[in-house]
């Protein structure tokens, strides 16, 4: 009798990769030094919109160490190369060409206009100042409303409009629900709001960096990217290179948050320059360059209308978005707000829904995927307006949610936006969260503080969120005109000594794939956690993959690993049966051993690996390998959900907001490694809270980014955040064999509305029913100051409408 080994899945393993990542003793792209390598520095436009009338690079070419200076025309004389947009959201989408270096015009401040190549990075940067560029200013287009106004100046003159595309979903046309106008016009209560999703900077820790070595027939590119596989294919297509002559390596990558889901002008320019010079080229950006030229996130104007009957039953939801794309479309581009289209209805049963989104160009840095990508924006809007609807109805905001959410016995549930949620239990997560939070106790304290007019008011914010992640079923992506599939690849190599190499197409940039995949494979194959090595991020060893974004690694890539392991076992079973002279049907596989049922005859998988390596005694027709690969294409998204509760203290004299407590109970299905989940939640919460309270990319009227350093772009530290109370319920996903759901974006998606709801709740009685993000102390103070009846504000009537009528008559609180 042998005891079953303790399963690896579910253990809070410290991550394998931590030591090298935390100490920095690893191979970052910028650490790579090749013989004969030269350095590239980029001159960036100081102006947001201008015609380049002249450029003189002669003085720069004479600077010490300078090897070459290139303009846009030097790199691309035909003006044919444009960075890819892989998601044209409509057939008539307007997609301006985004060159490697500006040609003719610059369209945002920070756009690269010339490249200096020098023997050292310092010499390259010194020479930038010697390039003389004449700019003839063009009118600067800033702000969504301005950009779509009649007669607005144009970002791209030749397009004739600042609108890129309009994408519409209407439940009455899709057959998934009723007509929203009809619903709104026939409802008792209608609440309308305009919410602004401010622009954010992804703020990954490692700046972008690329090294290109052109000295072999197969060109090698190292890049600090989330997407080496996509990059390989896209660089080949964009620059017209044979794909088999391109190898891309993402070595250890220091964060991305979507900001490195990109195919950049800098990467392509480095390839062209390296080929021209026949020498390896390195480009590493400064933080100042990251801020102005790496893509930003969010930046939407959301007009949202919700209607309900008097008892709080939601009857309709209408959303009209303007989404600021910046000057160009990135690789996902307009697809970001479109992803949100499916999430505005959230966890609620909504009978009629209409969504429209217009993507708009302005003279700003482009926007693209940023942690959550469309789903945080949608979640914010619906969770904020649920609170406003509750106030209007005079209902407790949690009761309103309960009244409308999908009950646990109604799954699988097809929503008004046509997704089928496979599983969920909103009641269970909410009950646990309410208890951990002491909801009733905090409501009592809130009432006491209000009664005594305390300088510090308490507010409670709710966010009962869900999201679609695990991107994505390829057929769904196809129906949305996305330019690729959503599958993932894995391979397992059984080595002669019994050790295991696992190849994954999901390229990590800090998530902990090496640990989690090792845990999965250890259980699947019954080999030791430390006997497994995870190979990733190099298109030569990992030849297939679709990389890491959209909380897809585990739910898609992890399942591919399971499928590959199953194939290894199936192959090994044949050999084991042969070696033990038993029938395959009589073999049981557990703990890494095949045992003949009812006997103590067994063979370990490591022994089979060695026997297969020797290949001296294999059954007829069996290939001498256990190695296997698998590609998994999910049939559905995964739908993590959770209940987040936030208590804020608002100092009404200064407007300062302090997070008093934050409780979240998330349901992400089965958990592989609770420690990694905890890390994802904490980081995600910090990022979502940062949107609510701190971060904003601000442009002045000239299109200059005024929040261009971390002195002005306020990323919070642990000092600014409370101790989070995180907990889980576990409702297994039915859409994959592990029962797992994504967790990488959950905290970011859920937390922003919880915080804003809490702040508004704290001062609603002071005449406040919304505050624009980020909720800076000045904005909060001013909202309170203006809301007071003495200042002509609505004061305690801010609850508005029916709610205040009910309160006045002693009705529901």
């Amino acid at each position: 009798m042998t005891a079953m080994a303790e399963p690896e899945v579910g253990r809070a393993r410290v991550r394998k990769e931590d030591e090298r990542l935390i100490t920095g003793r690893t191979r970052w792209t910028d650490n790579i030094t090749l013989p004969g390598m030269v350095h590239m520095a980029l001159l960036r436009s100081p102006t947001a919109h201008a015609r380049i009338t002249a450029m003189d690079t002669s003085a720069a070419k004479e600077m010490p160490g300078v090897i070459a200076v290139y303009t846009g025309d030097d790199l691309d004389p035909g003006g044919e190369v444009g960075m890819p947009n892989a998601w044209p959201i409509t057939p008539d989408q307007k997609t301006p060409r985004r060159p490697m270096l500006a040609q003719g015009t610059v369209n945002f401040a920070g756009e690269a206009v010339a490249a200096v190549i020098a023997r050292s990075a310092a010499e390259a940067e010194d020479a930038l100042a010697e390039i003389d560029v004449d700019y003839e200013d063009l009118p600067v287009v800033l702000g969504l409303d301005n950009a779509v106004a009649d007669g607005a100046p144009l970002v791209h003159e030749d397009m004739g409009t600042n609108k890129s595309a309009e994408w519409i979903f209407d439940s009455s046309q899709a057959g998934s629900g009723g007509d929203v106008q009809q619903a709104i016009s026939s409802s008792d209560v209608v609440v309308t709001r305009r919410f602004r999703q401010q622009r954010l900077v992804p703020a990954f820790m490692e700046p972008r960096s690329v090294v290109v070595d052109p000295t072999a027939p197969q060109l090698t590119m190292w890049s600090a990217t989330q997407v080496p596989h996509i990059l390989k294919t896209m660089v080949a297509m964009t620059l017209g290179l044979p794909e088999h002559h391109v190898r891309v390596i993402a070595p250890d990558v220091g964060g991305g948050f979507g900001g490195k889901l990109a195919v950049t002008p800098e990467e392509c320019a480095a390839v062209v320059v390296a080929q021209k010079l026949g020498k390896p080229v390195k480009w590493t950006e400064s933080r100042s360059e990251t801020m102005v030229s790496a893509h930003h996130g969010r930046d939407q104007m959301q007009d949202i209308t919700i209607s309900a009957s008097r008892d709080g039953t939601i009857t309709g939801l209408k959303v009209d978005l303007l989404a600021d794309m910046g000057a160009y479309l990135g690789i996902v581009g307009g697809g970001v707000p479109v992803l949100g289209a499916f999430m505005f209805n959230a966890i609620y049963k909504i009978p009629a829904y209409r969504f429209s989104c217009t993507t708009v160009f302005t003279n700003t840095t482009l926007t693209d995927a940023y942690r959550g990508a469309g789903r945080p924006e949608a979640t914010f809007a619906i969770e904020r307006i649920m609170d406003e609807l509750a106030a209007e109805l005079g209902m407790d905001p949690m009761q309103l949610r309960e009244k409308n959410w999908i009950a646990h016995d109604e799954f699988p549930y097809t929503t008004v936006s046509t997704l089928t949620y496979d599983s969920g239990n909103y009641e269970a997560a909410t009950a646990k969260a309410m208890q951990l939070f002491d909801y009733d106790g905090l409501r009592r304290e809130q009432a006491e503080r209000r009664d005594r007019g305390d300088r510090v008011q308490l507010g409670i914010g709710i966010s009962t969120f869900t999201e679609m992640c695990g991107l994505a079923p390829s057929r769904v992506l196809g129906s949305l005109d996305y330019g690729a599939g959503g599958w993932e690849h894995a391979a397992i190599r059984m080595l002669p000594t019994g050790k295991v190499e696992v190849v994954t197409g999901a390229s990590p940039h800090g998530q902990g794939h090496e640990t989690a995949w090792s845990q999965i494979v250890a259980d699947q194959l019954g080999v030791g956690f430390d006997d497994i090595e995870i190979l990733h991020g190099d298109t030569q060893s990992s030849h297939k993959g679709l990389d890491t974004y959209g909380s897809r690694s585990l739910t898609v890539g992890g399942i591919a690993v399971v499928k590959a392991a199953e194939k290894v076992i199936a192959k090994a079973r044949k050999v084991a049966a042969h070696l033990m002279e038993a029938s395959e049907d009589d073999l049981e596989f557990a703990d890494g051993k095949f045992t003949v049922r009812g006997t103590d005859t067994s063979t370990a998988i490591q022994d089979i690996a060695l026997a297969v390596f020797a290949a001296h005694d294999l059954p007829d027709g069996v290939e001498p390998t256990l190695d296997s690969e698998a590609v998994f294409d999910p049939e559905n998204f995964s739908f993590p959900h959770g209940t987040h509760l936030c208590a804020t203290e608002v100092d009404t004299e200064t407007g300062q907001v302090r997070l008093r407590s934050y409780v979240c109970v998330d349901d992400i299905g089965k958990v592989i490694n609770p420690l990694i989940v905890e890390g994802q939640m904490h980081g995600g919460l910090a990022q979502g809270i940062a949107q609510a309270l701190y971060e904003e990319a601000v442009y002045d009227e000239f299109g200059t980014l005024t929040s261009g350093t971390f002195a002005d772009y306020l990323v919070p530290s642990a000092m600014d955040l409370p101790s989070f109370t995180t907990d889980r319920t576990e409702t297994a996903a039915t859409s994959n064999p592990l029962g797992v759901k994504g967790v990488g974006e959950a905290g970011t998606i859920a937390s922003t509305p919880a915080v804003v709801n809490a702040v508004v709740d704290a001062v609603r009685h002071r005449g406040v029913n919304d505050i624009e993000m980020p909720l800076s102390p000045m904005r909060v103070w001013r909202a309170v100051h203006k809301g007071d009846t003495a200042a002509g504000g609505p004061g305690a009537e801010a609850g508005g409408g029916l709610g205040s009528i009910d309160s006045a008559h002693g009705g529901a609180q």
Partner: protein
Amino acid sequence: MIPAPFDYVAPSTVDEAVRALADAGEDAKVLAGGQSLLPVLRMRLAAPTTVVDLGKIGELKGVRDEGDAVVIGAMTTHYDVQRDPLVHDHALLLARATDTVADPQVRHRGTFGGSLAHADPAGDLLAPALALDAEMVIQGTGGRRTVSAAEFFQDFFTTSLAPEDILVEVRVPKHTGWTAHYEKFNRVAQAWSMVAVAATVRAEGGTVAEARIGLTNMASIPVRATAVEQALVGRSADAETIRAAAEHAAEGTSPTVDGNADVEYRQHLAKVLTGRAVEAAMAG
């Protein structure tokens, strides 16, 4: 983020440093810890021809007792100021303000004199220096001279230091037995002060015998809230008196406008925070 090329000089005495600055002319910069200068160099907002590093001059470091004053060497780090018993006993306000400066890494490298000479109006040590009537001992080509804090701070990032001058030390008159509080207001813990109030008081019983109040970031230079001081002295420090006195806090201020605060809000904050600072200082 690579600075433009510059010559680097690291003298070992103040005399050498002054000479090095005089030799280098107007395009020289003094490196006194580097917590502000290095970012400026890296972003190429400044491109001095010569950087004179004071870090190797031993005589500029340390705190000593000179009878009626505590004398702090200009190159004493924030960390050393923070934990110095003389500063704690005789210039508590300065210790309290230094506690709030940036983070431990910065406090181990940044220096008291560097911070004053940089004269960032959002810097946390200017207002305490002004409130405590500190005197700056300056050495230039013509020898040493002493300048009051009120004369020293002239404008945004501008002091009475001539290009070849070195701030040698700061004489802080002893405020023995005074209680103090530095009320700092910012959006995230490691950000600069939007507004801050430096308050130190000498109480006799429940009465304010003396009060010194300085405001951070309420003008291009630190501001002394004299009207508040006058409204407090000789009164019992009850909540109403403090509130009424703090109403004078914005008098004579001319704060800047930035994304975090406009003039109205900064002046409002100055009043609220002054009340809180005095209350906390009175409470010890």
